[in-house]
């Protein structure tokens, strides 16, 4: 009997670790099921392409948010940052691809620099990224005061790419999540980043640089933010600095839904993908239900509360 209990402990512990993501997974499948029951075409390749495409930039931006949350920071500037990337994509990347690329690389470097300054000056990431969000917004308005522009042909081609066998939006979601998983959960870089998040003193005592860990996390977040912006621009076909402003807080919610925490120290790329898709599907379900779009944010809020309440219940059952 005791042997049985002992044998049952590791899976149970693992179960407890995976429980948050499981609740979100159930929520995601429930959303898809609701869509499918309302409109049976949803389960075809075209249907899935349509409902998933809106969630792609959100999922990638949520991965960026997760990188910062894995070091215990919060990024309140990611929404405007993604918006700024769409603006640069719609203007500079079209007129002079070389300069445009340079700008985008510069933005990633700016993120890494922000991380370095936050670390060296010991300032709260919440405020620093808040300040940076004004800068991203300002730069975006400076480059393109009113929404517009066009996307480079290669990006537009990717945006309208529709392979026969599987829904196209799944590809960027899966590839980006896999890359983040390899980097943050499997690679040695990820170990350092997560170690910094859970115990910076221990990282330092181990002879590794906390500064480098933080800069890497911010750099990766910046790169993911650029990717999210490129994909958003490929879908909207233009640039608008405020097109992604809601991402700032929704990405935090997606990370929490996916099983991440504010304490830092863990990376949950697959959970984040699920959380992001769940939140992104809200608008689809509501439009299928003929609910006025006014109610969209209320439903998003209610889903976040419901999923987290579900997690509390599951957590108590597993104990």
């Amino acid at each position, binding site marked *: 009997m005791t042997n049985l209990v002992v044998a049952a402990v590791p899976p149970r512990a693992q179960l407890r670790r995976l429980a948050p993501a499981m609740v979100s997974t159930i929520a995601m499948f429930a959303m898809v099921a609701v869509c499918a029951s309302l409109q049976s075409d949803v389960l075809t390749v075209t249907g899935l392409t349509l409902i998933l495409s809106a969630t792609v930039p959100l999922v990638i931006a949520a991965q960026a948010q997760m990188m910062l949350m894995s070091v215990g920071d*919060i990024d309140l500037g990611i929404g405007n940052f993604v918006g700024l990337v769409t603006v640069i994509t719609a203007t500079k990347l079209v007129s002079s691809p070389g300069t445009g690329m340079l700008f985008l690389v510069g933005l990633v470097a700016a993120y890494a620099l922000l991380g370095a300054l936050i670390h060296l000056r010991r300032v*709260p990431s919440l405020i620093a990224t*808040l300040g940076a969000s004004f800068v991203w917004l*300002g730069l975006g308005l400076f480059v393109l005061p009113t929404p517009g522009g066009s996307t480079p042909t290669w990006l537009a081609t990717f945006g309208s790419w529709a392979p026969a066998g599987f829904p196209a939006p799944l590809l960027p979601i899966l590839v980006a999540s896999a890359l983040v998983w390899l980097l943050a959960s499997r690679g040695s870089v990820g170990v350092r980043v997560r170690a910094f998040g859970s115990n910076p003193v221990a990282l330092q005592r181990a002879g590794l640089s906390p500064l480098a860990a933080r800069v890497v996390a911010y750099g990766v977040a910046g790169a993911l933010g650029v990717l999210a912006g490129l994909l958003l621009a490929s879908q909207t076909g233009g640039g608008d600095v405020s097109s992604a402003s809601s991402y700032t*807080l929704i990405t935090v919610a997606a990370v929490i839904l996916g099983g991440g925490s504010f304490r830092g120290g863990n990376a949950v790329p697959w959970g984040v993908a699920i959380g992001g898709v769940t939140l992104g599907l809200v608008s689809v379900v509501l439009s299928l239900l003929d609910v006025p779009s*006014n109610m969209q*944010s209320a439903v998003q809020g209610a889903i976040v509360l419901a999923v*987290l*309440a579900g997690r509390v219940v599951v957590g108590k059952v597993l104990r």
Partner: protein
Amino acid sequence: MTLRTLARPWIWGFVASALVWATILALSSQGGGQTVSLALSLAPYLVIVGLGQMLVITAGPGNIDVSVAPVISLAGFVAVAATAATGSVAVGVLAGIGTGLAVAAISVLAILGLSIPPIIATLAAGLIASSLTLSLADGFTAVPDEGLRQLLNLRPAGVPVLAVAVAVLTALVVALLSRTTYGRSLLAVGQSRPAAERAGIPVARVLAATYLASGALAGLAGALLAAYIAPSPDLGTRYLLDSVAVVVIGGTLISGGRAVPVGIWGSALFFILLDGLVNLVGWSTAAQNLLKGGLVLFVLFLAGGGTRRDATTSRPRRRPRPATAATAATTTGDNTHG
């Protein structure tokens, strides 16, 4: 003495606003007093929201109220509608405050009942509030009360009545923090939640009161703003970022446990004067945002050493970070069950 005063971070808000004021003075023919008077009539709204945000941030790592922006917008509509329906300004303002309390009650239930991290709980409550705002805004016809608007515009001897009222409110908050059991408890919870719990402080009650206070203050600001400008769905939008920024530039510790209500005035005046300066020079909103963001970052990185003293005197303690124990509620909840 002078050096110690300079080392206090809240000084920077006042220094910065004085610098901006001097620049405006140098650039415009407008009298310096008039500029201050105008800034004093706009800053109080930000100060009211900032005071609530400050109380929440003081409650410790991870505590933040991101529902202030939607609450302000919603309270604006509710207050104007209630005033129009009953004909009484007091009922309207009270309805605005009540709206803030109601939204904050959702956050409190989620934070304490479901152990949800505050940023997510207030985000969810805010999302619900913003949906209600959009529904209310459809076909909204009531107009703000003229009497209240005149009162808010009243500036005897150049000093806006509202500024005096909010100064009194600030003094009350100072007294609340230093003289009352609630204030002392809040500071204790912010400095160390486990220690406060062991000392027998009713942490849950203190947190609930704090979020309700923030909601009520945001509601009040919304009711007044709607009368001063006009109710609109994005009446409160700028107040989320601004309220957090003024609190922190004002010298309140983002990691909690130290509140500086007076500092909010300095940084709020700085923000308002900066807007005035940018309008005066005729810069675009792009430049306005760039300047605001750049200055926030500059002040932050410059004054960043302010917390260094804390970090060096207590070496073994972990560097205060904003989000380290954001899920404190979750952790403690887990521990009691485990």
